[in-house]
């Protein structure tokens, strides 16, 4: 393999169009489409008494108004519950339009279609909905009290309750181990609600030609949207295409499907026989998509004199909002990934997943890990403080050692498979981090502290992804995979894999993602799985195509395939460069239909060997063309890891908090493109800084989201994000052919834990709740000292 691109910081191939205004996001398409808008509930909890549209009927531009009553039976059913779980005894999903009760501010009640969005909003403003307000349930503690119910038929507001126990090495349970431990601590930790908040909101655009339905959606999974749309609308699957065009960020929120709008917009397009488009605006995104993070965690821990964990008992109250379309993935991830790079002795974790009258909760980059890591890392710091030990040392005392891999944590992970870590080197990683940040030489001063946080992230879960590779007679390599892209640079990273595997210049490779016309089976982009699962599928597909190319070329060159190599897109006999043939010619030869459409085809006919008249032109088991499709289905997740450290400074008077240094050591196995991985980490850290110091969803007691705008939901600007220093460790995954692990979510995971650690160090006050603002620090100081 001479064209070695795997591992190189290749410049991105998607950039040219994105830099020149040539990107195509959903709202850039369908210029003549009708526009949809929604009347959404202004109440957190209310009964709908009446909907009066009369005042809206003479609005110029009005095309249609739909309420739940207008929906056909199959369209008006509750939306699917995607990931059922036995512990989710009371899963509930929303109706596409509310029928009689609304359960959060922002729930869609009426759909309006008009000639443009301005007119559609004019119509919405004139529709009068008469509500009878009901008592709202806000916050997990009010939910757990069970006084008022979000769903009449869900007692105590408990959607799911799950206890998981892993006995210690001596067979004892966590509670018993803690009772008899030399030291114990118990405390409560809180993480507030936040959200993914991509800069492009959601969007759906649908076209119906009377037979075929084409839907464009700003989604992280076009194949699943397609299946959902087909199932709900009753259009046969082969007649539905879903395309995820350029997507302006996802970070988890766009994995949910089908959104009500993904059903209603295509349905309206079919009903009206017109193109219909809905572009979510910022206010809608705050109140009608999904949030995450909010969790209360009670911890009890027992440990020995060296700070080694003997037992850990964690009870989690998880606020999942009004509905559970995505099951209970978030608290499951928290309760498993909380373990981090440690051996925890005996472990017990219990969670209650609770309904509240707030926006539903589904995974946001990190997906429950930031909460779990906050829990574990705060625990480590508290142990160190209790024992008067160095915080890094306490962590090191609990690490899983390099020789322990594969290491079985004894639990079931989010993919339903055993939680077995595949590889890693945590002690080395800690040494690298300490060196990078200068841990041992840090000069502590009042208002200046250092903090640390470690995590392990299960990445690349199955069930599968596919790769399709086709080499056409012009020598171009067309790669497609079904999962979607939201800025991760897949067009580049996957092209690097293909170019390396096939031995072609990267300029000849083009990659398409998220288009169900090209590959109908895929899962989606989430859980840091794209590179691992699609990357390996593409590699396998390339290997298959390469093998065929060598076989076809060997025939024509009368050589042994084993003697052939592909360099710069040319197949040649090793050591005999004159006996060669470009892949373009091989592609022609691979197809016995040899019409001379172009010069290449004409030229190729000269290589065609004499056909054996007694055998079919396409041999049994073979296919025409130089193409191949392979699926990669991982046995279980691969486990990436990282450790971050930060130095913070606080102002003694104003309580302002400044991160002065931020260091990351990261291990995601083999790197396909270090530049892209680095970019993912930067972005994750910035989101983490947002989560640690700026971003929170603030609900008042009436269930109103009081900061539903970018003025008040404080996403950091460049001025708020510190410089990020990075170092990489590469412990390849033994589980997949490329030895890679996922990197998409990594950066965000430990940031709240790290900042809390550093702040606690600077201030000498326990930091048990994140995010933290200067105002809150001020109050901790005045009450805590």
């Amino acid at each position: 393999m001479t064209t070695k691109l795997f591992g190189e910081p290749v410049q991105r191939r998607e950039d040219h169009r994105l830099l020149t205004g040539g990107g195509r996001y959903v709202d850039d398409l369908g210029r003549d489409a009708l526009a949809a808008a929604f009347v959404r509930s202004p109440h957190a909890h209310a009964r709908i008494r009446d909907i009066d549209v009369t005042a809206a009927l003479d609005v110029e531009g009005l095309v249609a108004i739909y309420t739940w009553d207008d929906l056909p039976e199959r369209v008006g059913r509750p939306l699917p519950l995607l990931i059922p779980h036995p512990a989710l005894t009371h899963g509930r999903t929303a109706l596409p339009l509310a029928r009689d009760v609304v359960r959060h501010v922002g729930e869609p009640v009426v759909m309006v279609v008009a000639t443009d969005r301005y007119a559609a909003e004019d119509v919405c403003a004139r529709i009068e909905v008469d509500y009878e307000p009901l008592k709202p349930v806000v916050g997990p503690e009010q939910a757990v009290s069970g006084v008022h119910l979000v769903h009449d038929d869900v007692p105590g507001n408990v959607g799911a309750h799950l206890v998981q126990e892993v006995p210690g090495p001596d067979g004892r349970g966590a509670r018993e181990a803690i009772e008899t431990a030399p030291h114990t601590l118990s405390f409560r930790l809180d993480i507030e609600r936040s959200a993914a908040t991509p800069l492009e909101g959601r969007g759906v655009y649908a076209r119906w030609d009377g037979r075929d339905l084409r839907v464009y959606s700003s989604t992280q999974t076009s194949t699943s949207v397609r299946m959902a749309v087909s199932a709900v609308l009753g259009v046969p699957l082969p007649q539905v295409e879903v395309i995820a065009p350029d997507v302006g960020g996802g970070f988890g929120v766009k994995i949910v499907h089908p959104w009500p709008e993904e059903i209603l917009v295509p349905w309206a397009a079919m009903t009206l026989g017109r193109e219909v488009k809905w572009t979510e605006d910022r206010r809608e995104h705050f109140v009608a998509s999904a949030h995450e993070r909010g969790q209360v965690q009670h911890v009890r821990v027992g440990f020995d004199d060296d700070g080694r964990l003997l037992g850990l008992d964690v009870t989690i109250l998880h606020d999942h909002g009004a509905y559970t379309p995505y099951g209970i993935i978030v608290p499951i991830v928290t309760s498993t990934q909380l373990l981090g790079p440690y051996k925890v002795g005996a472990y017990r974790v219990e969670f209650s997943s609770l309904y509240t009258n707030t926006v539903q909760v589904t995974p946001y980059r990190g997906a429950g890990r930031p909460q779990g890591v906050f829990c574990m890392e705060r625990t480590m710091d508290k142990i160190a403080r209790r024992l008067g030990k160095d915080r890094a040392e306490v962590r090191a005392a609990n690490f899983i050692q390099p020789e322990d891999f594969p290491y079985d944590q004894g639990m079931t992970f989010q993919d339903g498979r055993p939680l077995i870590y595949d590889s890693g080197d945590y002690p080395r990683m800690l040494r690298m981090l300490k060196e990078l940040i200068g841990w041992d030489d840090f000069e502590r001063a009042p208002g200046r502290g250092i903090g640390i946080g470690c995590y392990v992230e299960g990445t690349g879960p199955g069930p599968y992804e596919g790769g399709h590779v086709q080499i056409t007679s012009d020598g171009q390599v067309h790669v497609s995979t079904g999962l979607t892209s939201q800025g991760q640079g897949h067009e580049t990273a996957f092209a690097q894999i293909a170019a390396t595997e096939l031995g072609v210049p990267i300029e000849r490779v083009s990659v398409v993602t998220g288009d169900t016309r090209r590959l109908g089976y895929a899962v989606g982009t989430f859980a840091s799985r794209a590179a691992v699962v699609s990357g390996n599928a593409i590699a396998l597909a390339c290997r298959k195509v390469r093998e065929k190319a060598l076989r076809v070329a060997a025939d024509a060159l009368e050589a042994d395939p084993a003697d052939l190599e592909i360099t710069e897109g040319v197949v040649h006999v090793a050591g005999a460069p004159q006996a060669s043939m470009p892949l373009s010619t091989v592609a022609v030869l691979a197809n016995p239909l040899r019409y001379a459409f172009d010069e290449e085809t004409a030229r190729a006919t000269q290589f065609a060997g004499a056909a054996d008249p007694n055998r079919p032109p396409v041999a049994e088991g073979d296919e025409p063309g130089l193409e191949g499709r392979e699926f990669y289905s991982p046995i279980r997740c691969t486990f990436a890891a990282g450790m971050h450290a930060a130095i913070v400074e606080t102002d003694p008077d104003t309580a302002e908090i400044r991160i002065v240094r931020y260091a990351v050591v990261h291990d995601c196995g083999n790197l396909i493109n270090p530049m892209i991985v680095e970019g993912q980490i930067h972005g994750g850290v910035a989101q983490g800084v947002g989560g640690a110091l700026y971003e929170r969803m603030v609900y008042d007691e009436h269930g109103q989201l009081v900061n539903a705008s970018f003025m008040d939901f404080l996403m950091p600007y460049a001025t708020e994000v510190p410089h990020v220093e990075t170092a990489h460790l590469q412990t390849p995954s033994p589980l997949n052919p490329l030895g890679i692990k996922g990197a998409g979510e990594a950066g965000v995971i430990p940031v709240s834990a790290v900042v809390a650690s550093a702040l606690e160090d600077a201030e000498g006050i326990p930091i048990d709740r994140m995010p933290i603002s200067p105002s809150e620090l001020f109050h901790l100081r005045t009450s805590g000292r």
Partner: protein
Amino acid sequence: MKPPPFAYHAPRDLGEALRTLAEVRGKVLAGGQSLIPMLNMRLAEPSDLVDINRVAGLDRLERTADGVVVGATVRHADAERARAHPLLTRALKLVAHPVIRNRGTVVGSLAHADPAAELPAVLAVLGGHVRVARWDGGVAVRDVPAAGFFAGPMEPAIEPGELAVSAFFPALRPGTGSAFLEIARRHGDYALAGVCAVVTVDDGRVATARAACIGVGPVPVVVDVGPACTGRPPGEADWAGAAALVREAAEPEDDIHATAAYRGHLVGVLAERALRDAAREGAAARAG
């Protein structure tokens, strides 16, 4: 988030603008950086919008010995570039982001009268005024002193049918230093609390000292802290005592970003820092 429909007027001269305003009682559109977000969110639904950006003569910024007169369509960015007044220039750098300042107007910021906005405090601490005009058979103007201009949060003393045509920021006397300090959650956000201070040093002693604070009351609060610090050299004045006066005058409230107690505390801290900075600058100006 699309604005509701409205009737649009783009008068070319002041008379036409005032006649239109008298007739339709519409909302004035200046830079639009506060008004358009409210329209986009449909928090305001005016029937008529009177765009003053094409009105001749309102885009002038004039410097005289007495101070600076800023016309109604002078953008923040242009006023900042003109460096016509040290305190105004300082404050402008704290208003939003550079791109917003390319459109937003100085007078619009005053007319918007946001309690957390910087420019109202500058006008107030300097004792400037806003010139307001209306149509009364001809152009009739009145000057509203800052003390009376900020009637309440988002409530300027501009009557329906009136237009603020300019604002006057008095020049600093010789030997006067100024400072504007604020704490915002993010760079460019409206401040949680802020203080601007003006201190005059005469013969090596503090002669006058005033401060105005933002974000801690319905309108910018101006406090004459002279009683606590005049008559002493800047290095020996009781700035903490002066700051305490500012803090006492503040009426902060809780919101989602900060508690009242924290805001009150911040005002004290910032007032002391700002007064010291202003005094230092005043002393240096006198010396130089």
